[in-house]
């Protein structure tokens, strides 16, 4: 049991607990907090995979912006904590479906031979990522900015409301 593995299992457990908290909690705000836990844990996984840049970006965007957005939405829509409303009617079937999916995917993953698999986690150079972003993936990069603008404008229009504005 190397240190790496220990850390890995710890971070993994954290992620899973956070995820379970999100979907099973009766209290909405608790769910939001569990989400933050899960997101931070995923950032940890990224660090384990030697992509620090991504981990930092993850914390910044998700842990910061997205979570705040969600909390705001919860406030504005005055989500009630009634238990009856929390868990939907098709929960059992959903559990079955999700469970089936997990089992099948795991089988798929475990039985596949991935080509070019190396034993080591290789360090990925941040410089090269930046370079790639502006050369090979320049087009998606620009389009991504367009997407953000569209989302911005769209959100403003949608949320503006009808009261004579």
């Amino acid at each position, binding site marked *: 049991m190397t240190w790496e593995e220990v850390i890995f299992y710890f971070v993994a457990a954290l992620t899973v607990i956070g995820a379970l908290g999100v979907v099973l909690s009766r209290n909405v705000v608790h769910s939001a907090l569990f989400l933050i836990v899960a997101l931070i844990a995923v950032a940890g996984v990224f660090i384990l995979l030697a992509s620090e840049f991504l981990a930092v970006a993850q914390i910044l965007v998700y842990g910061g912006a997205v979570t705040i957005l969600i909390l705001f939405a919860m406030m504005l829509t005055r989500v009630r904590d009634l238990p009856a409303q929390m868990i*939907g*009617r*098709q929960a059992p*079937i*959903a559990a079955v*479906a*999700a469970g*089936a*999916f997990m089992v*099948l*995917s795991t*089988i*798929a993953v475990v039985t596949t031979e991935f080509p070019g698999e190396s034993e080591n986690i290789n360090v990925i150079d941040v410089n090269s990522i930046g370079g790639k972003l502006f050369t090979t993936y320049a087009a998606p990069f620009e389009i991504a900015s367009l997407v953000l603008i569209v989302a911005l404008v769209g959100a403003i229009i949608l949320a503006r409301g009808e009261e004579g504005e």
Partner: protein
Amino acid sequence: MGMEEVWLLPAIPAAAFVVLLLVGAYLPRRGDWVAIAAIGASFVLFFFVLADLLDAVKSEDFVGGGKSWTWVEFKDFHIDLGFFVDEIAIVMLLVVSFVSLMVQIYSVAYMKGDPRYGWYFTVMCLFVASMLTLVLADNLLLMYAAWEGVGFCSFLLIGFWWEKRSASEAAKKAFITTRIGDVGFLIGIILLWREAGTFNIQEIIHFAEEGGYGNTYLTIAVLLLFGGAVGKSGQFPLHVWLPDAMEGPTPVSALIHAATMVVAGVYMVARMLPVFVAADPIALDVVLILALITVWISALMGLAATDIKRVIAYSTLNSLGLMFVALGSHSVTAAMLYLFVHGFFKAMLFLGSGAVIHATEKQDVDELGGLAKKMPITSITFAIGAAAMIGIIPLSGFWAKDEVLTATDHHQNIIVYLILLASLVVTGMYMARLYILTFLGEPKDHHVYDHAHEAEPIMSVPLILLAIPAAIGGFVVFHEVGDTLGFPGGFGEFVYFDEPEKFKMHWDTAAISTVLAGGGALAGWFAWSNGAAIATRVRETFSPIATLLSNRFYIDELYQFVINNIIIGLGKLIAWFDRTVVNDTGVDGSAGLGYLAGNELKLTETGKIPNYALAIAAGVVVILTLFLVLEA
């Protein structure tokens, strides 16, 4: 002007038809003179063609002359508009053009005052044009087209007085019955064409003689071809339309149903006889058997019929049967000779009966009698015609009948010969009966008798003109007569099948036939004269047979039964199928299925998003499973 211009013969009446169709109503006298002039012109042109033919016949390898235009041509399929005249055709041409002319002149008086007077002559022109095309056609397809053309004109003319229900029914019956035969005819034509690659008659004959067709194939084709003749020429079992066709005006009966259209079948078979002979002998056996049946049943039915025109119609069937017996015995000479003289005396018999009808307004012999005193010309010419029909020497019918008997004697076995001889007796009886009941004895209805008068000249002159060839037309068989007229010899040396047949008097056949025919006539005279006392007693004694004969052997009832039950039953079955299976199940059903599906499937549109999301998840699971299973 010669054989090359023979196409003018049908063309001129065809042009007259178009003229009459378009402007006939506005011409003086409704244009009857146009029709007569056109047919007269054809008759005159005939002589030019004849002269040219007689000249050409002198050369050894003469087959025929004429002219042909290509009508439809693509790849290896072509149809010609071709006209061809040879010895057989020229005989027909004479009959058709002469009798047509006589009938048209006669019709001027007979049809006078009829509201559709002009239409009569219009259709008559079309008929003459079609008939001449049929005779002169050099390929089977053109002949078939003309065949249908004369059938159509026959339909129009039989149903000329269509206000009368029986007339329109008769026209329908004639058309449908002949149509049944024509289907076979067309299939036969196609079969012949398929192997030979041509519709041209001479080429098909050549092909058949060379053995180009398989034996069974050719026999079937030829029998189908004969089917058309069975319909058109009233052979058993398609003879039923001819007696009913008497609903039409009498000149129509004289021209179409005696001299010309009904013998089209004989003409066609005579033309195609080399092909018939090349087939299996069973083909001509079928021809012979049907002809013999026709000869006998028509004679028996003629004995019982009471309408003048009906009796003559049965005698026509009788004669047609004889012509086919001749053809079945490989004798084109006998068949064509009989056709030739028959055209004259039968047309004359009809026209004579027409004179009687025109004068007395009555057709039933039970209401006539003693007219000989009042209508001498009609009576004498009728007697000549009847005697020719019976076959009394030296009238034309005798020579023709003798030729048929001789052919049967030489080519068939003795039983056929005897059957034929026996029929002569019955022929003598029914013709004598007709004459006696109409013209002799005491008038049965004095009112009718008083009213009767001789026919006017326009009607009686054609009668006399037809009586002449009816009387002496038979002498053309003699070599000396033919030679004098410019022919290569007697009839048998002009029109023949294999070899020219110089006429030889067969005294034994002549004697037997005369005795039998005369005996029949005498028996008839005994039975029906003096108020038909003996005949009435015989009829009462054998009343079931008499009923059978007067009901025409119930053949019509049988056909009607078949049509009602089988054909209409089949129609009902198909209608049921269409209604239930195709419509209800197929059309309505598939529409209903769509509606049902939609109605049930719409319930999946719950509108609830979680449901849809679940569906997506379930789908992903299924696909994943499939992938894993198939991969493994």
